[in-house]
């Protein structure tokens, strides 16, 4: 992609960048709706409060004129394409606004035969980053208010979209906060790791927001909702919470694209993406697999090689 060539690095992303992206998205969305390419577009509209935005499922060019892209456009919209949200979109081809990390979810969902590429019109954003949760919603994006995931983003410049809004720009010299935190936890003695997670998991109220926003949690019957037989306690107590989080991380291993939506929406600030990243790291090391870089028919945990590592097995 030529975008990569003229990559522009800076320490502050000005609102004008987002305005330009907004304009490009509007023009494109209006056009594909007008010419009938798509039946609807999933994008973002501004929220009532300053510096907020929310997902929007739109079907007319008039509404498309109001679409925006701003650092508040944090949602991974691909969740609306999954069967857990079925019925909210019009039948037919759908346009979707996607950041780089959201594209990974789209690729993953294609690999899992949940959506078809030809049913989508992907309006990708050449993404400079979004606000962290509860960060200052001032208009520009800086190291102080950018989301943790964006610190280590490798997918600013999406590939394989039908249209790309914006031209490469990104913050430079960000500290890899998540990687550092993960290394810190890995280096703790085992009992302290347990204590760290126990503290966090105990706070969980089982609101299931982390599950509901996840594009990969589309099971019609979640194991963690079942009570006959019960595999994981439904009650929000430390015991069931711990089991829930372990099961969740396991079910997403090799599938999670790292959009960090789960962590963003957690009202109790539980660092869920650390678990996802830890699993992603393991699967990369063991099986050289990274989720969501391209649609893959089989993930790392539903394929095998005869000579896979088995040093841990007697």
């Amino acid at each position, binding site marked *: 992609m030529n975008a990569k060539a003229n990559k522009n690095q800076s320490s502050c992303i000005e609102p004008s960048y987002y305005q330009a992206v907004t304009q490009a998205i509007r023009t494109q969305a209006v056009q594909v709706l007008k010419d009938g390419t798509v039946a609807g577009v999933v994008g973002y509209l501004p*929220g*009532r*409060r*300053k510096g*907020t*935005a*929310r*997902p*929007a*499922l739109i079907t007319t060019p008039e509404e498309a004129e109001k679409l925006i892209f701003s650092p508040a456009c944090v*949602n991974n919209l691909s*969740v*609306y394409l999954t069967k857990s*949200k079925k*019925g*909210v979109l019009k039948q037919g081809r759908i346009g979707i606004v996607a950041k780089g990390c959201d594209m990974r979810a789209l690729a993953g969902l294609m690999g899992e035969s949940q959506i078809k590429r030809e049913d989508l019109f992907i309006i990708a954003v050449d993404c400079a980053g979004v606000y962290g949760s509860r960060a200052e919603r001032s208009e520009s994006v800086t190291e102080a208010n950018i989301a943790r995931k964006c610190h280590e983003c490798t997918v600013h410049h999406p590939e394989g979209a039908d249209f790309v809004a914006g031209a490469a720009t990104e913050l430079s010299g960000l500290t890899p906060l998540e990687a550092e935190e993960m290394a810190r936890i890995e280096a703790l003695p085992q009992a302290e790791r347990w204590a760290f997670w126990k*503290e*966090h998991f105990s*706070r969980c*109220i*089982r*609101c*299931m*927001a982390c*599950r*509901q*926003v996840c594009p990969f949690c589309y099971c019609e019957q979640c194991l963690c*909702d079942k*009570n006959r037989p*019960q595999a994981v*306690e*439904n*009650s*929000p*107590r430390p015991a*069931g919470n711990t089991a829930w989080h372990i099961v969740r991380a396991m079910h997403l291993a090799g599938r999670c694209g790292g959009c960090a*939506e789960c962590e*963003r*929406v957690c*009202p*109790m*600030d539980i660092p869920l993406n650390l678990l996802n990243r830890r699993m992603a790291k393991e699967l990369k090391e063991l099986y050289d697999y990274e989720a969501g870089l391209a649609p893959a028919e089989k993930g790392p945990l539903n394929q095998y090689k005869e000579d896979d590592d088995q040093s841990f097995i007697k």
Partner: protein
Amino acid sequence: MPQIITEQNLRNLIDLLVKESKVVVGPKQADSVVLYQPLAAGSELTLDSLPRRSAKELFFPICENILSYQRLDGKMQVTDVDRSRFPETVLIGAPPCDAASPAILDAVFSWDYNDEFYLERRRKSTIVGIACTQGDDACFCTAVGLAPDTDTGSDLFLTPLKDGSYACKAVTEKGKALVDAHARLFGEAASADAAPFAEQGTEKLDLVKIKKWLEGHFEDPLWEKISDICVGCGSCAFICPACHCFDINDEGSTEQGSRRKHWDACGFSKFTNHASGHNPRDVQNKRYRNRIMHKFKYYDDKFGRTLCTGCGRCVRACPVGIDIAEILSTINAKQD
């Protein structure tokens, strides 16, 4: 002359209450979040931000045992919870939007059935409310008939003064008893200039008009428009001071276990799922409609109150930015 208490004495009061073996609950920093939690000392009280979860868990815990069972000599033995052991509790530092919630919830927990778990905790608690100076653009307590300085629901009400101390008003006998028992911590006010409140972004709502609109619009395109994006989580209900739905689950084995009562939410698809598999609220916008209907119509029909204190928590927490204040304003502005 109104009575005042200095911040230091407020913290000393907590220390004293703890010594008297009362459980004192107040906003406390827990990692990156502030939550209502038991305070071991007055120094732990954090008054500079609204706790992420509401104070309802004091009376209506996230999860509690309501009985336990065990098979002994082939027979099932069921043990009830000894509610007389519930501790005397003092809630300190609840802003009006939290302090007002038990007063709203009492009605539903003592209606056709007396929920003794709730009521016993409620009887044993004293609420020290505090006028709020922390509001942000999500708050709309004034729009639903409260205000940053209403003492509804508080037993004792504190108003922050410009000089850093708090004006005290004993609202109920319980509150008066608390002051009388620790009279030496309270003093006379030198000045009574209240600290300013934050601006709120929502105009006053006409709740009667809103209710009227809801009556005629069970079916309305508005529901799809505003809530097709809802992902059906429980965050808005769980952190809300007024939501009070719960589920009951038996957890354990065939030999022993507990029956647990824990929070539930009408946003969950399983909430209305029948055993047959049929779900009368089959799509998310019907579930969200219930949220609005319950808060602004059904609860009012039944108990004459609105099930929202305007705390703005759901506005801040909704993963997809659904803004109840905005929705209410939209309905408020409707002509038919």
